[in-house]
């Protein structure tokens, strides 16, 4: 089936981390010049495998063959010398330095003691030219949008002569447009004979981009097969080890007419302007838009996090003043923010303390926390949301993305929020947890909550929403009903193209 040589071959690779067997006896091969998907739920071991390949971790047992030669890398530098580069999930740059400085950081061109700035810029330009990217080499990396930062990282790998590039969930924080550009670049790299390993659990990407796919589950190799011989349901089933309910066709809901939230002429200088809409009890109102269109900014303004926001907000028909998150909470609002690690959780605190953080005052008597009540409340929500943690005292940092996200949801359910704003609630969450979160959103709406759902994943919006608002460049560009919404139509509205 494979044409020509294998670029890579994993032979019985195992790796154990304290308490976790991340990989167990994994063996498979990757054909040279192909784009090979590596998929599995969070914690299945796909990132670990990528990191072993890139020399960040060493395997405990087994080995890797690169173009037929057994290798063992002690560092990313050694891996790169063998032609293996990595584009990380969380981009690692010195954000205060320029593109050129970052690209040449490993080997700054120098004349005697001083950096040869001209040579450095020239080399950086060459590297970016190798992937046909027009990014300014003198720009500060921290000032670039995420998509461009990723291009810089790819340029670093390609420019250093990488023949194999590991992409670790590269589109998890990119906008649709940026992701499209990345796909095109990977296609071009394939034409030039570069082998790409694409770690992802997003089905649309795998089918759009990849030639072959390897599924991992619980650190074990489940299958390696051609993408043309795979179908979505089959892959998902292999990833989670059981069949799940079909992903389409949400049950139809009778939308109640009770108004939960009415926003009129909401504006914030430089972020968004003149936003008006009504959110009713029992409905899921989708909010679509490209990254940077102002979706999260609107969400944060509604939660009292934007002191500059102006406009009128009514909750349950009463005009309210939303200046602080505290006021928003008192009115029954809850916000599951976009970035759970930065905004959603205190990673060093326990799972339990995180889930009760907004409601501690309610759980206390004369400022002393009633520990038994706290424990009982957290336990009830952990059970309801099926949070899988070693225990209530486990640090939030140690949980998987899906479980962390459930913790953030638990916070607002514990706070008895009736108007929930969910900003990218399933980003970076594995398939199983995603299905659970979707089911929860539907159940909450059925039980009478009003939900504002922001998502970059159009299938998710189409599946869950009763109506979808589209924001473009800080303004409402349109409203689409569930029946008439299509992915293509939404994309056109989001991008401002004629229908």
């Amino acid at each position, binding site marked *: 089936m494979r044409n020509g040589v294998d670029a890579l071959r994993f032979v019985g690779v195992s790796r154990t981390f304290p308490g976790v067997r991340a990989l167990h006896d994994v063996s498979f091969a990757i054909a040279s010049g192909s784009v090979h998907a590596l998929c599995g739920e969070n914690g299945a071991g796909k990132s670990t495998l990528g990191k072993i390949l890139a020399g960040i971790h060493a395997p405990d047992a087994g080995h890797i063959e690169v173009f037929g030669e057994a290798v063992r890398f002690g560092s990313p530098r050694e891996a790169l010398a063998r032609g293996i580069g990595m584009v990380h999930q969380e981009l690692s740059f010195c954000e205060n330095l320029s593109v050129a400085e970052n690209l040449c950081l490993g080997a700054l061109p120098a004349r005697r003691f001083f950096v040869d700035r001209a040579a450095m810029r020239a080399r950086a330009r060459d590297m970016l030219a190798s992937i046909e990217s027009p990014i300014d080499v003198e720009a500060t990396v921290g000032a670039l949008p995420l998509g461009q930062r990723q291009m810089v990282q790819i340029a670093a790998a390609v420019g250093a002569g990488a023949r194999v590039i590991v992409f670790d969930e590269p589109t998890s924080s990119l906008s649709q447009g940026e992701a499209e550009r990345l796909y095109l670049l990977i296609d071009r790299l394939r034409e030039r004979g570069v082998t790409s390993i694409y770690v992802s659990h997003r089905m649309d990407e795998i089918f759009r981009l990849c030639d072959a796919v390897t599924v991992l589950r619980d650190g074990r190799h489940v299958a390696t097969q051609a993408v043309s011989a795979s179908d979505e349901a089959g892959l998902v089933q292999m990833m989670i080890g059981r069949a799940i309910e079909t992903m389409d066709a949400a049950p139809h809901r009778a939308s109640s007419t009770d108004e939960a939230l009415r926003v009129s002429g909401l504006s914030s200088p430089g972020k968004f302007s003149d936003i008006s809409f009504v959110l009713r009890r029992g409905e899921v109102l989708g909010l679509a838009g490209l990254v940077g269109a102002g979706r999260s900014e609107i969400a944060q303004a509604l939660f009292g996090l934007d002191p500059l926001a102006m406009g009128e907000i009514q909750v349950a028909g009463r005009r309210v003043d939303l200046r602080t998150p505290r006021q928003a909470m008192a009115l029954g609002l809850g916000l599951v923010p976009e970035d759970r690690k930065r905004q959603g*959780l205190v990673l060093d605190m326990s799972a339990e303390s995180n889930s009760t953080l907004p409601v501690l005052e309610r759980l206390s008597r004369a400022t002393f926390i009633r520990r038994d009540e706290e424990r009982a409340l957290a336990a009830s929500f952990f059970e309801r949301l099926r949070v899988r943690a070693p225990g209530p005292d486990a640090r939030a940092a140690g949980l998987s993305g899906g479980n962390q996200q459930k913790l953030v949801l638990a916070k607002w359910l514990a706070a008895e929020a009736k108007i929930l704003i969910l900003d990218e609630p399933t980003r970076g969450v594995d398939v199983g947890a995603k299905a659970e979160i979707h089911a929860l959103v539907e159940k909450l709406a059925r039980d009478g909550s009003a939900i504002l759902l922001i998502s970059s994943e159009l299938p998710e919006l189409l599946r869950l929403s009763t109506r979808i608002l589209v924001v473009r460049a800080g303004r409402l560009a349109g409203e689409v009903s569930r029946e008439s919404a299509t992915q293509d139509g939404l994309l056109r509205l989001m991008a401002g193209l004629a229908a």
Partner: protein
Amino acid sequence: MLRKILASPQTGLALIIVGLGAVLTFFAGTHDDRLTGEAVNNFLNSHTLIQTATDASFFAVMAVGATIVIISGGIDLSVGSIYALSGVTMAMVLRNSGGDAGAGSILAGLAVCVGVGFLCGLLNGLLVVFLRVHPFIITLGTMWILRGIAFVSSKAESILVPQSLTTVAKASLGLGASLYPVPMLTMLAVAIVGAVYLTRTVMGRHVFAFGGNPEASRFSGLRLDRIQISVYVISGLCAGLAAFMGASFYGSASCADATGYELYVIASAVVGGASLSGGKGSAISAMLGAVLIVLIRQSIRTLRFDQNYEWIIVGCAIIIAVVLDQGSAQLNARRLARAAGKES
């Protein structure tokens, strides 16, 4: 139960202190008691032990406040100056209010010290919150400002405090003569109150949350300004209380008191496992950290090392203690992770 105690973060520090105590006892040698003629260990005797605890108590009290500030992700460099200003203000107030009024003087003195500490802490907190300048800079500034106020207002004199204060601070509480347990007991009480505050109250939990992730705390509706102001107020209160103890115990106050204490205080908190990046720390550990630092100083005397090397030894010991603590925390985490892995 035993396992729970062994796994608690204070155990390592307590074991180090006991271990060092044992070593000191072993090498200290003995002297003959002047009255009874019995051989007495040079370290393991009630006088030396309580003296060591007394030495530790003044900055251990402040270390409890400092550890709360550090858990919130801040730092307070001004505690030594708050101590001096509180002590000097109290001494001047009591001097100007006429003679020794017994219990009245004691209460007035305590009120003045704690009040000055409160105001200084409030000043720090307000400046940090409303000027949005890093607390290191703010408290570096107030460190000099408050010391300067103490200097100017006391005209650099050492001012005596009424005898009744010293009587209380040096009360023997039924222990033998020349044993002064009051500062030590105050230290224990403050550490316990601090521990209860941090682990049992809503405010304490909020301090951990704010220090661990201010952004997530804001998104959870916590009142960040209030949290920040209150940690500096607590630190100021601790410094005021320590000043009351110190000035009463030694019988006088001067503007040069507690010079450089801020560093001992921060060292105690850090040796006690507080993380300067916020979100981690314990009041009991901060107290133990203070005790350990004093014990190391004491060991130089007990073992008759050259006293000129004191600073070098204390400096090395602080670094070693923190490195050991980090190492044991990692070992502990790995052990817990292994245990969790086996269960699953």
